[in-house]
Each structure stands twice: as C-alpha cells, then as structure tokens.
C-alpha cells in the first residue's frame, strides 16, 4: 500500500473511523445529539477527502478503482447521507427506545454505497452491495415495534438476498468461462469465449455466458426495482421509516446504478444484442408500469416508489442508445450521471419532506391528506416540494427537465423511436399525478391539523437541495462540462 493508495481510500477510511468511534460512543454513553454530531462530522470529513481526490485516477489493489466519475457519484451520495442524518435526527428525537444505532447503520450503508461505486472486482462489488443491504435491513426494521416495518424488512431481506444469490451465481458462470474476477479481464474475456474454453466448446460457452448475463441482469433489475422485478418496491418504501425510504430511493439505487454503469461500459455490453434487447424490454415495461400504477396511489411513499421505477426506466434509455452513438459506449455516462444526480436531489426533497411531516407527530404520515393545506402551514417547504415534483415531472427550469432532455436528445441521435414514444407517453402520464400532489397541497387549509415547523437544519438542507435542483435546471453547463471532461 502506497501513500496514493491511502489517499484514494481516505473517504472510506473516514467512514470506517467514524463507524468505530460511533460504536465506542454508543457503548459508553448513549446520547442522540452527540451521535448525530459525530455522524455529521464523519460525513463532512468524508466529503472533504472526496473533494480532495476529485482529480485522482488510481487503481487501489484490484478491488477498487478511484476515478473522477465515481468520486462525483460518491460526493452526491455522501451529501445525501449527510442530509438524511439531519432528517433522521428530527425523525428520531422524540421516539422512544434506543435510537443511536440508527446512525451507525447509516454510516455503514453509506460506506457500502461508496465501495460499490468504486468496485472493479467481484469481491468489492458483492461486498459493497451486501454491506449496504445488511445495514439497510437493520434500518428498515429499526422501529421494530411497527408491524409494517417488520414486514417491509423481511420482504426486502428475502428478495434482496435472492437477487444477490442470482447475481453471484451469474458471476460464477462468467468466472468459469474467463477465469478472472477483475471486471476488465472478466468482461473482456466474454467477447471471445473461444480463447478461454478452447475451440471445441464455444457453443457451450456462449450458452453459459448468456445464462450468466441473464442472471446478473435479473439480479441488478431486482436491486434497481425495474419492472417486472419491482413488486417489492412499493411495500418496502411504504413500510420503511421515512428517512430510510429516502435512502432506499436515492443512495441505494444510485449506487447500484453507478456500479451497473461502470460494469456496462467496461464490459462494452452494448455490443451484445441480447442484453440490449433485454434492457429495452425492461425499460419499456418499467416506464409504463411505473407511471400507470402511480396514478392510483393515495400514499406518497408508494407513489414515489412507482415514480422511481419509471425514472430508472428512463435512465436505461441512455444505456441502450449509447452503443449506436459511440463504439465504446462511453456516451452513456454523461447523460445518465446528470439524470441520476438530478433524480437523487429531487427525490430526497420529497422524501425528506414526508419525513419532516412524519416527525412532527411521531407517526408515519404519507397520505395525500397529510400534505393537504401545506401551502398554508409552511409555504417555504411547500414551495420546495412543488419544485421537487415539477422536476420529477420534467417541467422546464428544473434538473429533471434537463436530464430528460439530455436522454431524449440521445434517443433522437440513436434513432430509438419506440423508446422515445414510450418516454413521451410516460412523462405525459407523470405530469398528471405529480400535479395532483401539488394541487392537494393547495386544498382547504381548515381541514389541516397543526402547523409544520421542522428544525433549522432540516429546513436549510431541503432549501439547499431545492436551490441545487433549480440551479442544475437553469444553469446546467458547469456540471455537464465537468462530467464531459472527466469521462
């Protein structure tokens, strides 16, 4: 291990140190304020190191590759984790029971997401995925006196475990063909299986590669909750404590997508027609199912779950179109990274606000009626939620619009007309149910209960996120150029 290795690992080390300190602190002195403080300091230290290594491009052992794109993703995730910490404190401070371990698990889950983002080896890929997963089981079931959260946790555990097993089995088949677990070697071996298994059985090798890739695709689709592997999503989102719904919808999904993007580009999977066809089908079904089922939802968490299914359907278009634009598929990176960042900030505002409403009366309030009259209760936060919903719907001047435009433009260049028409239909349906939420905020103020006044850190972080979403929507060039330069 050289100095550069340690520098490249510094964000992960910061989180590991933070987790250890938290463990000791919880063992000796339970104090929610102190725990929150240590967590926030940990995340800030991690952010500091991440900003320090933005230009670094370094392979640290075969396991992790620190490059500017993954560092960008990590910055987004850690920023969101930091905001989740503020929201969680507000959510937990008046709840009975031991709430300190919550933050330890948040730190560990965030660490998993960074490891996953940097992974270039099966070992780090699966460890990152499972570190995030296991911490999330604990977080989802955290209020275990709540029936719904237990149900959500066991569903998530079983399905996530099964999809991990499928992923592992798929990778085992690919490993049998290529003899390497290091992604660049593993995936480049797939293009010419004859070399690996000898010329006598290339047919057998192709079948194995196909089966392996299909299992991996199914596993990843489960984690990204793409239809038809989406069944668990609404239940798990509804049953989780509100801050964790945000974590699941933003960081957890974002990290899996970032890792998938890297896998896709390294493996040049756009050259495999079967995979591209599979992705196209997943994308179309996800957009249609996500948007159509979101129409009938009365619960905002469930609505956001379906909306996230649809958004990851849109994101897949960038991967599908990439192959026809550039031979190495690198053009997928810039639009999908932009879209993903926009989606994560936007969704975090919505889930953060639900958490704030749920914190104010110690219940899980996520029904349409709970945000009724929000414009009178707290105009500022209502404005934030409106911006977030408009961005999710893809209305101009928001990050969501620019992201969708980006993907649309890619689709036009690649001539993927079927996908584009589905995208337009999906967005059209989307506008209806997002606007329905905004209208319900303006309904009769007399029906509403108490006023909503979350603590200052929560308000400030939600407003910061809103400004970020608007900034990315009005002035997108800096981030675009940054992403373009670093890919």
């Amino acid at each position, binding site marked *: 291990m050289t100095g550069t290795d340690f520098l490249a690992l510094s964000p992960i080390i910061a989180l590991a140190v933070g987790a250890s300190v938290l463990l000791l602190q919880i063992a000796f002195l339970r104090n929610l304020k102190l725990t929150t403080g240590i967590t926030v300091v940990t995340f800030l230290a991690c952010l500091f190191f991440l900003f320090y290594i933005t230009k670094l491009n370094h392979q640290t052992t075969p396991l992790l590759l620190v490059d500017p794109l993954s560092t960008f993703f990590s910055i987004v995730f850690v920023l969101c984790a930091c905001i989740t910490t503020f929201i969680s404190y507000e959510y937990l401070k008046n709840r009975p029971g031991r709430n300190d371990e919550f933050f330890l698990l948040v730190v560990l889950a965030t660490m998993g997401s960074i490891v996953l983002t940097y992974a270039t080896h099966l070992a780090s890929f699966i460890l990152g995925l499972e570190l995030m997963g296991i*911490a999330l089981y604990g977080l989802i079931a955290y209020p275990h006196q709540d029936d719904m959260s237990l149900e959500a946790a066991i569903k998530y555990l079983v399905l996530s475990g099964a999809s991990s097993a499928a992923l592992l089995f798929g990778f085992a088949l690919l490993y049998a063909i290529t003899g390497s677990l290091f992604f660049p070697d593993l995936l480049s071996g797939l293009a010419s299986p004859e070399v690996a298994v000898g010329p006598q059985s290339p047919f057998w090798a192709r079948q194995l590669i196909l089966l392996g890739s299909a299992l991996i695709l199914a596993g990843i689709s489960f984690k990204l909750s793409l239809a038809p592997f989406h069944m668990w999503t609404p239940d798990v989102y509804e049953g989780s404590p509100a801050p964790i719904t945000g974590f699941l919808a933003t960081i957890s999904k974002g990290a899996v997508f970032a890792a998938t993007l890297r896998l896709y580009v390294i493996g040049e999977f756009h050259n495999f027609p079967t995979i591209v066809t599979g992705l196209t089908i997943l994308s179309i079904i996800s957009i249609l199912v996500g948007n159509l089922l979101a129409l009938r939802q009365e619960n905002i968490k469930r609505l956001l779950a379906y909306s996230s299914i649809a958004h990851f359907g849109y994101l897949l278009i960038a991967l599908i179109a990439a192959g026809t634009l550039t031979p190495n598929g690198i053009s997928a990176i810039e639009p999908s990274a932009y879209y993903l960042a926009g989606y994560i900030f936007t969704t975090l505002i919505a889930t953060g606000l639900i958490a704030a409403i749920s914190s104010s009366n110690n219940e899980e309030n996520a029904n349409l009626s709970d945000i009724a009259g929000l414009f009178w209760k707290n105009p500022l936060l209502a404005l934030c939620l409106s911006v977030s919903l408009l961005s999710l719907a893809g209305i101009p001047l928001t990050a969501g619009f620019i992201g969708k435009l980006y993907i649309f433009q890619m689709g036009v260049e690649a001539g993927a007309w079927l996908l584009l028409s589905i995208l337009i239909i999906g967005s059209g349906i989307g506008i209806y149910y997002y606007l329905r939420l905004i209208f319900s905020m303006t309904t009769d103020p007399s029906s509403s209960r108490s006023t909503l006044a979350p603590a200052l850190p929560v308000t400030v972080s939600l407003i910061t996120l809103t400004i970020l979403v608007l900034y990315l929507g009005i002035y997108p060039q800096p981030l675009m150029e940054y992403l373009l330069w670093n890919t």
Partner: protein
Amino acid sequence: MTLALFYIAGAIALAATGIALTRVNAIHALIYLVVSLLAVAFIFFLLGAPFAAVLEIVIYAGAIMVLFVFVIMMLNLGNRGTVVEQEMMNPSVWIIPSLLCLILLIELSLSIASLKSETNPIVVSAKEIGISLFGPYVLAVEIASMLLLAGLVAANHIGRRLSKMDQEKDEG
C-alpha cells in the same frame, strides 16, 4: 473413481436439499440441510479445495445451522420438551440422514485411501489462500469486517425484546 465419488456426493447433496426443503418440521429440515452441506464440503475436497471444505463444515454446517437451531429453540415452535425428544428417538427421523452421512463417510475414507494412487487435481492449500487474502484481497477482508459489524448491530437491535414500557403499551 473420483468421478464416481463426485456423482454419489452430488446425488446426496441434491436429495438431502430436496428433502430438507419439503419438510414440515424445521428441525428435521435442518438435519437434512446439514447432510447436504457435508456432501458439498466433500465435493470441495474432491475438487482440491480442502480449506474450503473445512470452512464449509465449520461455518456453514456448524455456525450458521446452529444459529437456526437456536432460533427454532427460542421460538419453541409446536410441541415442547419431551414430546420433541421422543419424536427424535423415532428411527424414521434419523435413519435416512445417518445413512446419507454413512455413505459420505465411506466416500471420504475411499478418497483418502486413494489419495496417492490417483492423479489428483492440484490442491490449493490454506497457505496460498492466506497469502492472497492478505495480498490483493486485503481490502475485501477489511470491508467484510465492516459488513459483519453491520450484521451484528442490525441483528442485535432487531432481536432485542421490546422494553417493558413498550410491551405494556402494546397490550394495553
């Protein structure tokens, strides 16, 4: 010879898994699952991975299955104490797993006896695994420790009984 041993062990693994997952009684299922894991460990041994075989027995068949047994005991499902004990003495419960284990034992003795006579695959020793575990895979070990910490904290929190106050609130 090795091939024949592999097929028999594979058949035992499959049969035991199949029986395990179709049982009604969780403890009976666990016995078959342990047999299945022993068979898989034996296959690891045949494949020239003795260290993996030992780990499979110690951690999988040992630790993880015992964890299942503990939880089933804590839950006290179905009939209790003596009834369970009597039931376990019934030959129909233990005769098949014992038979399967006996076959595995014979297989193991045969393969150990033939260790020198046949050309065995290259055996990967524990030393080699240790070297690569603390060479290129050192970060995996570190991250795995964090994973276990997450598992520990999550399981400790979830498994905890609710405090008296909460329970009274629930019941009242």
